[in-house]
């Protein structure tokens, strides 16, 4: 089964508000996934809408509205996290293979707990790849980074997820370079 979603193509003359109606729940869910806090998520959505509205005239191809708004929302979420100094739980030993292996078996954490502990940019890549179903090239376009950088960041993030989740490679497969 493909992880890529079918999207309804917006009509050429749909207004910002009309297009937004179909996206607002998704925008909130993505924002919430970053901050895990209702008010912060609403603030992020608000910022994104204001910025989106202001730049809407620059969006020539309305079929890209969803991608375009998500990009704005992600930037707003990252700005919000930076500005509000949102505390993202961080465990240094995630990044040092083997150190935490002793405890690995008792770390039966669900995906949302593990996701919460990722860095904001790691969350972004996981959301874009596995929630939105974007290709590496599309993610590179959205984040305005080279494909190679996205590949290596995704690879590293998947390794982290794999290590942190009890089921690890049996369920998610090996973290290879073929994403």
């Amino acid at each position, binding site marked *: *089964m493909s*992880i890529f979603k079918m999207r309804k193509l917006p009509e050429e*003359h*749909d*207004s*910002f*508000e*009309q297009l*937004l*109606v179909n996206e*607002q*729940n998704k925008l*909130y*869910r*993505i924002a*919430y*996934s970053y901050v895990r*806090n*209702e*008010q*912060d998520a*609403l*603030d992020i*959505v*608000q*910022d994104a*809408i*204001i910025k989106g*509205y*202001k730049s*809407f*005239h620059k969006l020539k191809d309305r079929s890209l509205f969803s991608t375009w708004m998500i990009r704005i929302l992600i930037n707003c979420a990252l700005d919000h996290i930076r*500005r*509000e100094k949102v505390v993202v739980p961080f465990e240094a030993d995630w990044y040092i293979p083997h150190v935490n292996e002793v405890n690995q078996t008792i770390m039966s954490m669900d*995906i*949302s707990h593990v*996701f919460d502990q990722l860095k904001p940019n790691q969350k972004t890549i*996981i*959301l874009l790849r*596995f*929630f939105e*179903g974007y290709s590496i090239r599309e993610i590179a376009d959205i984040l305005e980074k080279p494909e190679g950088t996205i590949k290596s960041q995704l690879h590293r993030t*998947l390794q982290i*997820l794999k290590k942190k989740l009890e089921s690890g490679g049996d*369920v*998610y*497969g090996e973290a290879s370079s073929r*994403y």
Partner: protein
Amino acid sequence: MEKLHQDIKQMVDHVTIPDEKLHSTVQNALLKATKKEKQTHIKKHHIIAAIASIFVMAFGVLLFQSYEEIASGDHSKKSILFQNGDEGLQRMVMEGKVQDLSLEVEDQGIKVLLKEGYIDNSKMAVSIQIIPDSTITFPEHTSLTYEWLLDGEPIGPPGSERIPTEELISNGYIYIDIYTNFPPTANLEFHISKINEVEGNWSFQFQLSKNEEFIVESNFEVKQDAFGNSLQIIRAELTPSELNLVTNVNLFLDEAVSGFQDYKLAIVGVGSDGERYIPSQVMSTFYDTPRVDGKQGFYRNMKLPRGVNVYSYLIVPYIITYQGEKVTSAYGEGYNYDHYSVPFAEDEIIGAENPIKVEKIKQESDRTVVTYEMDLGVPEFPYIHNRDTEEMTYPISYRSDGSTIEVSYPKIETTKGLEFFMYIKTYQKFPGLQTEINLN
């Protein structure tokens, strides 16, 4: 990878949506965005710039003058809420419903002034001005980090806002919150902890009394005509400063016509004396190519400033087709519509297909009243254009007396350069859908 995809999808999809709060947030964001647009958008009179996607159009500066403002002379003109607020807030200033705060706190060489405050069941508005010490340089945009408390409890988490510095220092700024659950007397605290990179303590404590009027109606009849067009008023909320309407409208274009179509829903205030007040904002969805193959549906939550103290509203859906061309101007993409213009004089005829005859022009102390002989199907009237100053004056109200219609404009000084101005446009009317609501 498929399992990870499913888990991530499930994780995100299972986030509970706070429907009401999200809806409010979206509406508030759109309101803020359109307000910003309005503040920064300067347009030449016959170029409606960048409107392809604008759903609420605001027509010009003069239209924001309410009757009360025109009649009031200079009273309260210095109020920041009056100068920067919408018609609803302006009326609250004029009627003395805004409380004077006159609070100021200075820290780190920066003085913060809270000048006025207002609360009702649709909003809280507080005017803020900042005066920095001459040694402090502010960037183009000033960033405020703040927190609001009601009866000692935070209203939401701490927030931050970026405000154009010039606006904040010279003209003041209105902070608007759509938090609506204020008690009759709200004990408020406003703490600013950071202004740009300067940390400090600018704390204010004050009381605001809520303007209690709050009328909510939801049992309105759905209007539908034989062609499948429909208008449903789902809910109406009226506070002293705002009318909030939730509507569901479906309109079909009845024939193929070339031009630019604008689907509109005008909310006309109906005074007890028969005067009808033309809205400053008209819900509008615009297309630059004909749509003849289907309906246009709206599901809209419209927040309209209550510039006049009326309780009845006439809701008029219609479609306008303009003729003209798409152009690119300094302000973005726009549309240069064809228009008629004739001298500002009695007995002139405006337009050809549905001509409007100027019967009489009367100068009153506070307004200019023009009597037209015309077919009134939709609340659309000629504008008055000053060729020398490029200033456009828009109608503010009208009253019908059989075959003639008296239309009031803000007082215009008669000069040589005046002309009547009207876009060349045709209307599709929906008389079966027109609805009057009474919120008494």
